[in-house]
């Protein structure tokens, strides 16, 4: 087992970065679809030792370093289905996971209690964004009610509100998509929200 894995590592070492990214993306796909331990072992053999060097530098001690390696690789195993190779390479994905976990570990160590979390500050790259349609039932009911209200908005305001609240886009993304200035997105959102609020008041 030991020898087998070290051989795999050597084989991977002899190939080019692009091929390596493709190969690793392939393994990630198999992990996602089949929970394949062999494919995971290939990913693990490549990334875990390299992560350890990073983690040692960042955390300054062996135990914490190995904790960071373990947490990062656990995320890879548990979230492989979220990895999207069209958005970037496995290296970038795994790096952003490790960086975020490191931030949270350091804050926890210093006993910081503020309400900040790394995934808010640094959205993980190369992941599929959660499907906005996956909402709980309670939420769904409200969404239906809101749908009725949205239909009463002027078309332009409605499109902007839907893109932001239902599709979860940022205002800049909406501006790009509709080819309108950011300021216009902001004023349409503002007007629409004002109007919705008034309608909700009338309901009471």
């Amino acid at each position: 087992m030991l020898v087998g894995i070290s051989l795999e590592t050597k084989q991977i070492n002899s190939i080019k970065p692009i091929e390596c990214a493709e190969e690793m993306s392939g393994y990630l796909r198999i992990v996602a679809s089949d929970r394949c331990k062999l494919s995971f072992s290939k990913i693990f053999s490549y990334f875990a030792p390299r992560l350890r060097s990073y983690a040692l530098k960042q955390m300054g001690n062996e135990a914490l370093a190995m904790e960071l390696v373990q947490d990062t690789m656990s995320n890879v195993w548990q979230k492989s289905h979220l990895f999207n190779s069209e958005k970037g390479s496995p290296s970038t994905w795994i790096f952003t996971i490790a960086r975020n976990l490191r931030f949270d570990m350091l804050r926890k160590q210093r006993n910081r209690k503020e309400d900040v979390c790394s995934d808010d500050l640094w959205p993980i790259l190369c992941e599929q964004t959660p499907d906005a349609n996956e909402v709980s039932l309670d939420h769904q009911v409200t969404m239906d009610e809101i749908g009725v209200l949205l239909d009463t908005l002027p078309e332009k305001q409605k499109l902007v509100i839907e893109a932001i609240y239902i599709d979860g886009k940022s205002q800049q993304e909406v501006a790009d998509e509709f080819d309108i200035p950011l300021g216009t997105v902001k004023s349409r959102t503002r007007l629409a929200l004002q109007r919705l609020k008034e309608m909700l008041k009338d309901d009471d």
Partner: protein
Amino acid sequence: MISFHPKYTDLQAFSAGNCNTAMALMISAHLDMCQQCHHDCIDIQSELAADLFSLSTPTAPLDSQYLAMMSNITDLPVAKSIVNEAINTSIELDGKYFELPRVLRRHVKNTGNWSRLLGKVWQAPVELGDIGKANFIYMEKGGRVPEHTHRGSEMTLVVDGQYNDGIAEYDCGDFTIMNNQHKHLPHSEADDGCLVFTIVDQPLHFTAGIARLLNPFSHLFFK
């Protein structure tokens, strides 16, 4: 149009996860509005990742510690998909709603009530613990803050509208850092006024005219 961006070195520190949390919060909010810096950060992150996971990094063969780790990991279940929690994405002042960049939305619930600072300038404090003293500041059309400098530094992000501080004109998305070398006098002439998010590490220092009288009380401002 955004004309004021974080420095490239700050984008690098941010991407590496090495800048302080206040700066990270500001840059993250800026990225939500600025495609250019957003793309720069994506590039920086993939360079950092390529360096870190370079093929040429020498690695020892996996020992038993790694193998035990690997088998622990593969015993774990698949992560459940996260359902987006419904959070307030805007703040309100006087019936006006201001949509916030994603990273600031989490802090709406920690934002205090609006209070009038001076004339047409309003402030709502944001509880960020030891990250820094944060506030939303809203300048109505014609609203101005007396000329001041900063003992420490003040980071400002324009969330909505435009303002001018006698040094330059700032539009939404613009990010600036002011320190004690800068004297400025922010005011807004935009029809919808201007909403900014600021984090300061020291009280302001008022420099001009009668406003100097405010210095003893400056801890009350933007605290």
